[in-house]
């Protein structure tokens, strides 16, 4: 899946779960500080992303995903591995 597709998919999830404006969802943004997604909502984002992209994101790895860009790369790699 292309970077653009993953980014668009994440933007949809973030809007659904946390009301984030899709135009704010760019690779350099941090989930917690920039997009105001708290740790509980981040769990929802991860579960929705696993379903949408058909990947597994273990809890230990979630902690390493600080920015939207981190998540996009992770999902792309996990997608290839799957």
């Amino acid at each position, binding site marked *: 899946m292309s970077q653009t597709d993953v980014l668009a998919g994440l933007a949809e999830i973030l809007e659904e*779960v946390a*009301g984030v404006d899709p135009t704010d969802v760019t690779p350099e943004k941090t989930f917690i500080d920039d997009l105001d997604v708290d740790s*509980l*909502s981040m769990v929802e984002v991860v*579960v929705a992303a*696993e379903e949408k992209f058909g990947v597994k994101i273990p809890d230990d790895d979630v902690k390493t995903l600080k920015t939207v860009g981190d998540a996009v790369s992770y999902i792309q790699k996990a997608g290839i591995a799957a």
Partner: protein
Amino acid sequence: MTRSPRRVVVTGLGATTPLGGDVASTWEGLLAGRSGVRTLTEDWIETVPVHIAAPLAAEPPLGRVEARKLDRTQQMALVAAREAWADAGSPEVDPLRLQACVGSGIGGVLTLLSQHDVLREQGSRKVTPHVVPMLMPNGPAATVGLAFGAKGGVRAPVSACASGTEAIALAYDLIKFGRADVIIAGGTEAAIHPLPIAGFAQMQALSRRNDDPTVASRPFDKGRDGFVLGEGAGILVLESEEHARARGARIYGYLAGAGISADAYHVAAPEPNGAGAARAVAEALETGELAPGDVAHVNAHATSTPVGDLAESKALYLALGSAAGEAAVTATKSMTGHLLGAAGAVEAVATVLAMQQCVVPATRNLDALDDEIELDVVRIDNRKISSGAALSNSFGFGGHDVCLAFTPA
């Protein structure tokens, strides 16, 4: 901290009920004698023997993202608290002197049960990470405390159908003895679901008038056969008189006294002679420095159960003596149904307005007063009353008895 007891005033009111989405529409509904009870159309309705309830008149007007992290009890409490806060003129208050006291009888039972379904059907990974803060009984108090930055304390009394009233009684003590200047206090409940309905039905506590919903809730009537389950929230902004006067707030009246007692008789049945409830009424008068003859109006707990209504009548006579027969009594549950932990908070709102406007909404569906009930229950037409103290009673499973005493400004 102020050492001498201070007087407590009511400066803001908020509600969302089966009669309306705010205080004005609820009060208009009470004066018009409207019923909030209707036949349920949910797909599960045939699984339970009771098909009627009193749902909210208006869905909580919250944004989608805000709503999805909040149980319905929290949503309703937030809506009522926002109304009450605005009604109080959005008080400027030191956050350390602001508290929230919001009770619920059952807490986030809709979330608990729906997420249990998710767990069983879809597995633990699909359980929402918000489930614990949504189902915990202190959730609504926490939601309200967060919304208004109440850093002085957030409290959540749980005493079944007396919860909201006990939250107000607790707030009374906290302000009176100087532990807070402003408290957002009340109750909330959302339990229209087959499990609570089945449970209350098994206790023989619910009316079975499935074919005639609007006349099913009939407190004090000979033909009463149980309560009608309702949902909603009521919130009062309570304030020390000193704080309210200093900011020039509009004052509805005083919360002059509050009484809390317990039957220690049975976990669900009221003490038949009303002795426990009478102690709560007596304490409300005593703390408010009131005499029985000062009481012009009583908003009774009166849920429409055969034993409960009779015990309350006896309790009022025990506490007030012959003055019990002089007060204009009403049972607004005849219109709202029984909002469990929110009931007393919504009724406190109605009591304050009745006292302030000197008009008591008539009890509906009271065709023939029970021969054993000797109260002056207002029926058919609303009644003008002279200015005086007003009581609001709430009792709950567990033997909880709470009474609030309001006096005019």
